[in-house]
C-alpha cells in the first residue's frame, strides 16, 4: 500500500512480489541441482538420498502449517477470553 504523497517502493508493485516468489523457486532449484557437485555425508543412510533435506524441509513446513491451522478449531478463543469473569 502506498499512502498519498509517498514515493512507491519496489515491493509495492505486485509484479515485483511475483518476482520474489519466482526467485525462491529458482534458488530452490539451484540448490537441488548443486547436490551432485557436493559430496553428501549424513549420519543416517536416509540423509544421503537425493534431495532428502529439501523434501523434508518442504513437507515439514507444509505439514506444520496445515496441522496448526486445524488446531485452531479447538484452541481458538476470543481475545478477551481470560478477562471475562
Amino acid at each position: 500500500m502506498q499512502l498519498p504523497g509517498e514515493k512507491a517502493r519496489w515491493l509495492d508493485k505486485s509484479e515485483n512480489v511475483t518476482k520474489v516468489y519466482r526467485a525462491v523457486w529458482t534458488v530452490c532449484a539451484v540448490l537441488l541441482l548443486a547436490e551432485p557437485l557436493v559430496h553428501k555425508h549424513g549420519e543416517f543412510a536416509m540423509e544421503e538420498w537425493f534431495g532428502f533435506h529439501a523434501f523434508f524441509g518442504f513437507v515439514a513446513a507444509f505439514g506444520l502449517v496445515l496441522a496448526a491451522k486445524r488446531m485452531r478449531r479447538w484452541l481458538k478463543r476470543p481475545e478477551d477470553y481470560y478477562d471475562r469473569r
Partner: protein
Amino acid sequence: MTGAELSPAWTLIVGAALVPLLRGTLRSVWIVLLPLVGMVQLAFMPHGEFGQLEFLGEALVIVRVDRWSVVFAWVFLIAALLGAIYSLHVRHALEPAAGLAYAGAALGALFAGDLLTLFVFWELTAVTSVLLIWARRSERAFRAGMRYLIVQIGSGVLLMFGALQQLAATGSIRFEHIGLDAPGGLLIFLAFGIKCAFPLLHNWLQDAYPEATESGTVMLSAFTTKLAVYALARGFAGTESLVWIGAVMTAFPIFYAVIENDLRRVLAYSLNNQVGFMVVGIGIGSELALNGTAAHAFSHIIYKALLFMSMGAVLLRTGTVKGTDLGGLYKSMPWTAAFCIVGAASISGFPLFSGFVSKSMILSAAGYESLFVTYLVLLFASAGVFHHSGIKIPFFAFFAHDSGKRCQEAPANMLVAMALAAALCVGIGIFPAPLYALLPYPVDYEPYTGSHVLTQLQLLLFAALAFSVLMRTGIYPPELLSVNLDFDWTYRRLLPRMLGAAGDALGRTIASAESGAARVLLQLETRARQLHGPRGVFGRTWASGAMGLGVMLMLLAFLLSYYFVQG
C-alpha cells in the same frame, strides 16, 4: 576476604541498588558501566572455589569458577550489557535497576557451588525479574506477573526440599552431578524443569514474557531459562529422559507459534523450542552434545535478545505487536527490520549466522549416538523454527500487507543495542573459534563442510518455499485476534472453575443448613412467645380464684388416680 567478593554478581546487584539514586547522563553511564566492569572482573577471575564459609554447620561455596560457569557468565554479561543499552531511553529507574539486579542474581546462581547458595540466588532471580513485568503498570501485567511469581517461587521451594533431602541422606549440599536416583534428585529435577519450561510446566513463559515492558522482555528472555539449562547440564547431564523431554519441547511449541497473533508470544514459543535443543544436548550427555548445549545457549541468548529487541522497538513505536495490526513497517523502521532479519537468520541456523555453528553440534551429537527419531524431530523443529521465527516474525511485522502505520525509527539507544547483537550473531557465525574455545570441553568440530552447508540450505529454503506457496495459494492461516488455549487453561480456567463450583456447592450446603437451623429456632421462638408471651398461657396474669380452682382440680385428679391405683 575470601575471594567471593570478586564475583561480578555483586557488582551488578549492589550497582543496581544505586541506580535509583542517580539521574540523567550519570545514571546512563552507570548502568552501561556495570556489565562492563563485570566483564573485566570475569576476565581476571581465576578458576577455583572461593568464599567457602560455614553456615549452620554446612560448608557453603559461594563462588565456584570453572569452564561451565565462565561460558554462561560471559553471555549473561553480554545480555546484561545489551539490555542496559536497550533500556537507556526509559526515564523510570525501576526497569534498569530490576534488570541489572536480575542479571546479577542469575550470575550469582551460575557461580553457586552449593545448593543453598543456588537456592538463594534462584529465588532472587524470581523476585527481581517479576518487577520487569510489573513495570508495564497495567492490571493485565500485574496478574500475569503474579502467576509468574507463584510458579518461580514454587520452583525454588522444590529446589530447597530437594537440597534438604540430599543433605539428610549424604550430609553434603554441594552442587555436583545429581541424577534422578539420588536422594532429592527428582525434586531438584522438577525445580530445574519448571524454570527450563519443560512440556506442561512451560506456560508461565508464554504467559508472562509478552506482558513485560519492551526492555523487560529482552532481559527476561536471557536469564531464567538459560540458568535452568546450566543447572540441568551440571546436575543431570546424560539423563536419558531429557532427550525425550527436549525433543517434545522443540516440536510442541512451534504449532502454537504458527497460529499465535502476539508476535512477542510467538517469540516466547520459539524460545521454548530453542531451549528444547539444549535439553536434548544435556540428555545425550556426550562431550560434543554438552558443548553444543553451552554453545547454543550462548548464541541463542544473543539472537533471542535481538529478536525481542526488534519487537520491543515495534511495540514502543506503534503501541502493538499483534500480527493483525502490523505490516509494511520496513518503510518506517528499516534499521529495525534489518536487525530483526539478522536475528531471524541466526535463530533459523542459516550458514554464516550464529545458530548454524551451535545448533548443528547438538544435531551431530544426536546423529553420532544413532538417535534416529530424535534426529528427525530436531530436523523438523529446525524447519519449523525457520518458519515461525525466521519468516513469520519479520514478514508480518515489516512486510506482508501494509498496515498504513507510519512511525519513527527506533530510538538511537535501541538501534545501538540491536546493532551490537546483530554484529555478534554474524561474528559468531563467521568466526566460531573464539566461542568454541570457551566451551566446557575441547572442541573438535567443523560446522562448515560442503555437505552440511548444502543440506541446511536445502532444508531452510524448501521450508521457505512451502511458506511462499501457502501464502500465494491463500491456504496460510490468517493472523486472527484470538487467544489459543494452552496448558495454562488448566490453572487459569479449569482449576478456578472447579474451585468455584466446589465453593458454590459448599456455600449452598451451608446456606441450606443455616436456613434449616433458622427455621427450627424461629419455631421455638414462636412457641415460646405463644406460651410465655404477654398473652401466653404461662405469661398471663391469672385471678387468684382461678388459681384456687386450678389447685382444686389438681388435687381432685390426684385423689382419683390414688383410688384407681389402690383399688
